């Protein structure tokens, strides 16, 4: 293995360790880095909607678990504040 390759591999290794270290610090722990990369980032999207975009419709289920309504049924008369989220 030539000297250049050793240097390159060494530098990359150091960078990788540093990146994991920094991410662990920012996310709180290595476990959180894994969670972030494995479970969060794939589902986080910026989306294409902007101020002025036509608001997309979607069918939603009521809390009884059976009846449905459309998001856009709730728009039109007054501004609609839409809050997306989950329990955890």
């Amino acid at each position, binding site marked *: 293995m030539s000297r250049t390759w050793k240097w390159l591999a060494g530098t990359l290794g150091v960078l990788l360790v540093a990146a994991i270290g920094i991410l662990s610090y920012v996310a709180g722990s290595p476990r959180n880095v894994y969670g972030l990369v494995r479970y969060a980032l794939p589902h986080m999207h910026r989306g294409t909607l902007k101020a002025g975009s036509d608001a997309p419709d979607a069918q939603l289920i009521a809390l009884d678990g059976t009846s449905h309504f459309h998001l856009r049924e709730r728009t039109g008369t007054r501004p609609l504040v839409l809050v*997306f989220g989950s329990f955890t």
Partner: protein
Amino acid sequence: MGDVVRIYNDYKNQADFLTVYVREAHPTDEWQMKSNVKDDVCYAQPKTLEQRVAIANDFIKRFQYPLPFGVDDMNNAANDAYAAWPERIYIIDESGHVAYRGGLGPFQYHPEQARAWLAARYGAVKHEASPAAISPPPAASTPAATAM
């Protein structure tokens, strides 16, 4: 969430509100948070609509959550259309256009921006001073007050 409920209570007579429950952010079988264990909010990611609706109902009961509520279908159509996960706020105006698009949670999630939008249109709602705000105002001789 408390912020959103306060905004709802302040502006429910002027604007409509709708909470859309989307896929769980920190279920037990994915990236569970220690705080969820502490708060006893431990659910696996729902695999059926029944499970998802059950968690939504638990949430409503636990917090006596007052906002109108809808559950995203298992194809996550609403979530995908609005790029919402894990949390995001929009305001849709009367013409059906996006008037305000909040940032993606948790770091860019700022309910106070939605409040500001509503306040700009309907006027700010004054609240009784919070404990932090009742601390005595700085004396007139402080540098900050005499900087002018």
